[in-house]
């Protein structure tokens, strides 16, 4: 039997040194007893490891996960932890994957211990309450805390990073941690009577605690799961828990039973409207609306159900004097968020192609056949859906009114949906592109939608189709030049 005496409850280095030496000497876990030096005269004068021959050349590897778990688990208050860790180390030498077996009893236990330690550390970060000693620039912040495990040294750096500009001390029965603005010092544990008993802000904090509590939704168990009673004696707000619970039912039923009082001021008056004015404005409605007026009207369009899931109506944009009107399919994800047509990836491609074709986008009116984004949500993204014929028809009124307001010389329909809306019937792109079509007194050019180019998987095809797209746009540009020269 070997008896190992560690320097302290958290002596990981001592444990590691001894464990390594014993493992290399093939000392079985059941032949080791682990103890901690407690300051008293040593009972086992000759530490048992001294008897073991040092094996300098012998090394072995353990998964880094084991070191991580062991460093946490050794802080657990369970006296069996040193033996458990050595048993795991012993077994790991023959079975490197052991830690992946969450169903193994030893593995489950070390994981549970490490978790308990981290939880205690987290609760210490949460539940330490500093009390101010002295005022202003000479203030020192002191807390009393009773951790479940040996976590003070583990938890202290968090407070140093967070409260770097103020001197603080956390006193506990085991050890105390102090920060002077430069480094953490660890000293011996003290009695609770050493700690300050009040702070000038505690009354204010308690009044916050009482006010933020909603008595109509009492869930005491949920509170206790996260804030177990063992912590309550050091939390200044905890003295309120019982009275708040006791009073909750009464407070709530008072709220429910009391008649609503008279509203303390009359509700805001709607601005009086002169009905004759309204009639006048209707009567004066011009034959062709301005684009701004149309946009405002379309913002509340409910002609099809697409408005419901979309962010907003994305109306056309461009000068009212434009000679060219570009019609796309519908706004995409980005257009829906921004409220402007063709600002996403397809818009960028369109801009590039227009520039190459010699068309200034700023002088073009750009719109879509359907003015709300149609999509299905898929987790964190929205998948574009092609609008159907009823939706295209419902939205056509806006295209018609835009057309009447702009009176362009040429309409470019980008893609099948636009072609269907502009020409009033399903129109295959490939058979109808490359030349101008006369429709209701307007010249129409049909071509692909830039997002079609973005979807082509093969780079060669994309380059070829892009060139065709630019050629179509050049056709439009050329016709416009000739029309204006004539």
């Amino acid at each position, binding site marked *: 039997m070997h008896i190992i005496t560690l320097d302290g409850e958290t002596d990981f280095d001592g444990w590691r040194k001894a464990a390594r030496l014993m493992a290399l000497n093939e000392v079985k876990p059941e032949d080791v007893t682990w103890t901690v030096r407690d300051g008293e005269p040593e009972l086992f004068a000759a530490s048992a490891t001294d008897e073991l021959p040092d094996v300098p050349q012998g090394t072995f590897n353990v998964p880094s996960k084991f070191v991580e778990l062991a460093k946490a688990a050794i802080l657990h208050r369970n006296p069996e932890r040193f033996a458990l860790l050595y048993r795991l180390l012993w077994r790991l030498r023959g079975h490197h994957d052991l830690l*992946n077996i969450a*169903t193994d009893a030893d593995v489950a236990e070390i994981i549970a211990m490490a978790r308990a330690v981290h939880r205690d550390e987290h609760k210490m970060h949460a539940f330490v309450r500093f009390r101010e000693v002295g005022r202003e620039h000479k203030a020192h912040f002191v807390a009393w805390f009773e951790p479940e495990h040996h976590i003070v040294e583990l938890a202290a750096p968090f407070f140093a990073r967070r409260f770097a500009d103020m001197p603080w001390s956390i006193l506990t029965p085991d050890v105390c941690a102090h920060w002077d*603005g430069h480094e953490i010092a660890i000293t011996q544990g003290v009695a609770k009577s050493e700690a300050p008993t009040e702070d000038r802000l505690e009354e*204010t904090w308690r009044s916050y605690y009482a006010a933020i509590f909603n008595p109509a939704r009492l869930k005491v168990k949920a509170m206790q799961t996260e804030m177990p009673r063992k912590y309550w004696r050091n939390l200044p707000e905890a003295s309120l828990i019982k009275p708040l619970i006791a009073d909750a039912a009464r407070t709530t039923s008072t*709220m429910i039973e009391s008649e609503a009082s008279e509203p303390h001021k009359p509700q805001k008056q709607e601005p009086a409207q002169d009905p004759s004015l309204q009639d006048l404005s209707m009567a004066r409605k011009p034959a062709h609306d301005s684009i701004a007026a149309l946009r405002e009207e379309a913002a509340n369009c409910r002609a099809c159900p697409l408005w419901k899931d979309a962010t907003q109506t994305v109306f056309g944009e461009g000068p009212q004097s434009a000679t060219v009107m570009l019609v796309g399919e519908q706004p995409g994800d980005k257009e829906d968020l921004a409220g402007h047509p063709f600002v996403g990836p397809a818009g960028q491609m369109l801009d590039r192609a227009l520039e190459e074709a010699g068309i200034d986008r700023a002088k073009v009116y750009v719109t879509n056949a359907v003015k709300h984004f149609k999509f299905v949500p898929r987790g*964190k993204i929205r998948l574009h859906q092609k609008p159907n014929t009823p939706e295209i028809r419902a939205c056509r009124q806006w295209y018609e009114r835009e057309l009447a307001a702009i009176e362009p010389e040429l309409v470019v329909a980008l893609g099948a949906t636009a072609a269907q809306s502009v020409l009033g019937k399903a129109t295959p792109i490939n058979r109808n592109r490359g030349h101008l079509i006369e429709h209701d007194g307007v010249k129409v050019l049909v071509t692909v939608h830039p997002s079609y180019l973005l979807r082509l998987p093969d780079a060669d095809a994309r380059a070829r189709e892009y060139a065709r797209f630019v050629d179509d746009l050049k056709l439009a540009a050329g016709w416009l030049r000739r029309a204006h020269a004539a």
Partner: protein
Amino acid sequence: MDVQRKLAILADAAKYDASCASSGTEQRDSSDGKGLGSTSGMGICHSYAPDGRCISLLKVLLTNACNYDCLYCVNRASSNVPRARFTIDEIVKLTLDFYRRNYIEGLFLSSGIIRSADYTMEQVVSVARSLREQHHFRGYIHLKTIPEADDALIAEAGKYADRLSINIEMPEEGSLAKLAPEKDVRAIRRTMGRLRLKLDEAQEAKTTKAKPQRFAPAGQSTQMIVGADSADDSTILNTSANLYGAYKLKRVYYSAFSPIPDASRALPLIAPPLVREHRLYQADWLMRFYGFDVGEIVDGAAQGMLPLDIDPKLAWALRHRDRFPLDVNRASREELLRVPGFGTKAVDRIIATRRVTSIRSADLTRLHIPRNKALPFIVLSDHRPSARLLDEAGLVERFKPKATQLGFGF
């Protein structure tokens, strides 16, 4: 009025906002010796109230005076609750004083709408600006965003805040129009859209190493009130799915409508539907972490409502018994996530363990899986549920909670 009295009024006014998260932001601390505070990815709950809610942030309104008259709101213009208003310095000082005592992770500041959207937003931003620029406060800041506020103010809010939020309030546009006549769902959504574009820009700048442009690293969130209108769970969850997809929200909070002081008679003054709220959160989790589509969760729900007595995943499994029993030692991660009682962590452990050794029924406890719930749906190396069990109409009874005595164990 002294600060403590104001705090009582303005915290009382803020408590119906469920959000108190302080997680998901960037890592920062004050170890350079200048300033105060730190954040890590993980939030900290510094206390819990007897309503079971975490107290992480100092959650207050700048003022509870409000131009709006939203029926469900304790601060509506026509309510007779006492009114108060903090000065900017008072909130800043209170935040720092609480923070130094380790009561809080930071500040969650909202406000009633006073004068105009821009004026209100400016006031809210001023508090954050003072905390960050004058006091070098590095704790967590969550700011309520006022819909339709000017873009420059929103950009500044995002520069100082970790999280921004705008509450959608009602699952349906119609009920918002009825209960909150001054609020405009379209304006709320447009502003959420603007926030998302700014969040995306900041994200892109990070990956392309363009000029760093900080914007709310913990993202945006929203809240829906449950039970004040007649919307069913299916409507609520469809709205959530839409909001998650459209605006990349970090969280949708569900807040069971609860009686408020001096309440309007137009609303149901009954105990808040807490179980329903809980089921909605479970369904929300299924959408975000378990690969469920909103349709799968609510299909077959009676009158569009999730069952209250069993959780939504179990309800789904009972509707899809043909997919079970599932062999735990072979099933894919996606399939395992759909087994009643299996959480994401348990699934990760199962996958790591079964590479080395097969899983037996005695192992379930160590994997923290409730045996009774899972066993009818799974095959293990030493367990196979009887073929009859999955066909039994009475299977659901096995999972229903037993009647228990009410009490709080004091």
